[in-house]
């Protein structure tokens, strides 16, 4: 089993699925000859040609809207939104159309389509190349939202997303693309959507995270173990919707304390729903308040390093929150 980077795992997953299933097409801005601005589709144009790897005009609503039509007529589109921040011109197509077509047609039509979007900050991308967009879409019934944190999960969950018969928003943290390496089997392995993973076993505090934050949570957990002897458990949600309530609640019921970590703005972020579920369904087990570490409530990540560092959640901020909760 070879060690690969996150982006290599994505690229390999795409290529293997396209070889297996001729109905899969890739479309998006610069996904062809250039291979995408992050090279996620590098080599696909050469291997599969311009009929299956389509450089679209600079129009996100069109990318999502035509993916809907293509999915209805026998294709399995995998669209790339160049940066998650640029999905919003296509918001109406994704939320009002893609998410609702199966329901509004009473099951007559379904959409096997996947939308990949690089998200997240800490890469000096400023307000419009750093956003976390999951909260807007995890609120929408009819969409599935996946956020892998390791190369192994990325390849496995991308395959499951592509094979899924409903629209899946697949979010890839830009900072993980080249900074993280891990074991990735060649070929297929089973990794269903909707399963969280306990990536670190602990007794005192449950730390819930996903994406880049799943790594920072582990770092923070190690730090508080070494420095303070605090035993923290880490749950990597991996799929935000459908949510794996069982794994989440089992961990919190065990530790009695829950810290939720997300990079997005705090108010109304995805972690709010996790907090609400835990507060309602694990109430009798809680020995401390459900707490959150999240991005501040300013519009988005600023460019200046000084301001970006101020904005970003990091292992130190998480460790402090674990300590505070453990001491509660």
């Amino acid at each position, binding site marked *: 089993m070879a060690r690969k980077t996150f982006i290599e795992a994505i690229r390999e997953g795409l290529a293997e699925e396209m070889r297996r299933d001729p*109905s899969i*097409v890739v479309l998006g801005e610069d996904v062809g000859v250039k291979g995408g601005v992050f090279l996620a589709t590098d080599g696909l144009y050469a291997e599969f040609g311009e*009929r*299956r790897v389509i450089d*679209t*005009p600079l*129009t996100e*609503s*069109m990318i*999502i*809207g*035509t*993916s*809907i*039509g*293509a*999915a*209805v*007529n*026998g*294709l399995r*589109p995998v669209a790339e939104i160049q940066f998650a921040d640029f999905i919003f*011109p296509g918001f*109406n*197509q994704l939320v*009002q*159309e893609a998410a*609702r*077509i*199966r*329901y*509004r*047609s*009473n*099951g*007559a*039509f*379904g959409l096997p389509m996947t939308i990949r979007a690089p998200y997240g900050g800490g890469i000096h991308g400023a307000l419009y190349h750093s956003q976390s967009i999951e909260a807007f879409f995890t609120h929408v*019934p*009819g969409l*599935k939202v996946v956020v892998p944190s390791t190369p192994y999960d990325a390849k496995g969950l991308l395959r499951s997303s592509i094979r*899924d*018969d*409903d629209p899946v928003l697949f979010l890839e943290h830009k900072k993980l693309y080249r900074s993280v390496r891990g074991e990735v089997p060649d070929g297929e392995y089973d990794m*269903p*959507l*909707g399963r969280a993973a306990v990536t670190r076993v602990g007794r005192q505090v449950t730390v819930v995270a996903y994406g880049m934050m799943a790594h920072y949570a582990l770092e923070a957990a190690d730090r508080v173990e070494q420095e303070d002897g605090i035993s923290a458990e880490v749950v990597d949600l991996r799929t935000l919707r*459908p949510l794996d309530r069982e794994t989440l609640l089992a961990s919190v019921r065990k530790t009695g304390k829950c810290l939720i970590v997300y990079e997005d703005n705090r108010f109304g972020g995805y972690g709010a729903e996790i907090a609400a579920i835990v507060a309602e369904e694990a109430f009798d087990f809680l020995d401390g308040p459900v707490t959150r570490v999240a991005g501040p409530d300013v519009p988005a990540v600023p460019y200046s390093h000084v301001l970006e560092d101020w904005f970003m959640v990091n292992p130190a901020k998480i460790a402090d929150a674990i300590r505070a909760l453990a001491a509660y």
Partner: protein
Amino acid sequence: MSDAVSDQRQRHLGDGVGLTDEQLLGMYRTIALARALDQRMWVLNRAGRAAFVISGQGHEGAQVGIVAALRPGHDWMVPYYRSIAAVLAFGMSPRDVMLGQFGKAADPSSGGRQMPAHYGHAGHNILTSSSPVGTQILHAAGIALAARVRDTDQVAITFMGEGSSNQGDVHEGLNFAAIHRLPLILVVENNGYSISVPAEKELARPDVADRASGYGIPGVVVDGADVLGAYAAARTAVDRARAGDGPTLIEAKVTRLTSHSSDDQESKYRSPEDLAAAKARDPLPRFREQLARAGVLVPERERELADEIASVVDDAADWAEAQPDPTPDSALRHVFAEGGEA
């Protein structure tokens, strides 16, 4: 009139566009049927038996003329809320339409989940339509893209009003379809109003079709009351599409014979003269006279058709109204593929 004479007249009328008398009569029947069904909806609405009505009245001639150029069961249609005649011509039945009007469980468009006139039918390649206007052009472009990639020889046609044609999606869709010369036809049914907003406040030019040249595609204006003219324009567009020559924008100048919907009072913003002028552009009597003059529609046949349509409408309305409503427990279904995780 003698059959010999009428035969000549028939050939005369049909030959111009390559339609047989039976085809012409079939088109007339669909227009008249759509009108009668639509009028029944208003009757039901006033009687308090149908909560909401939105009409195709005045648009039927263009719709039926255009759809006659397509291959039902093979090509794809993405309709809009005035497409009653188009979906009937493409395969939906009057009962199907009335099931949607009453929001019944068996409604093939949505099982009673969407408002009336949000047509869709998987069995007839009619894609489910939503309320947000203009979005459908991208669905049709995607269907056309798949037809190209899969070499299915299918054409995708979609319909919308002129007000909706100002939505950004229409620009993005025409541009993409034109670049790839996709088999797409956009029909803009221009009735001069976007609810209460007159054309001059919606559009900077009288013709939406003028936008086509910016994408390097044909933009054709047809008189929506001229059924055969609409057919001819669509015929050319379909041939172009199948030949790989790309999309066509067909603008049909139609007339809105009702208020925008049963929730609207058009007298507040339309003058009596304007309303009278609208009535004068009704495609139904015009097509009837055209067929009669050509001897294609002889009086007996016209009476037979009228009787048949009346009973079909009675049947559709009465039968549909008697069908069961959806059950509450069904409301949770079809969020995702059955068996798929929710």
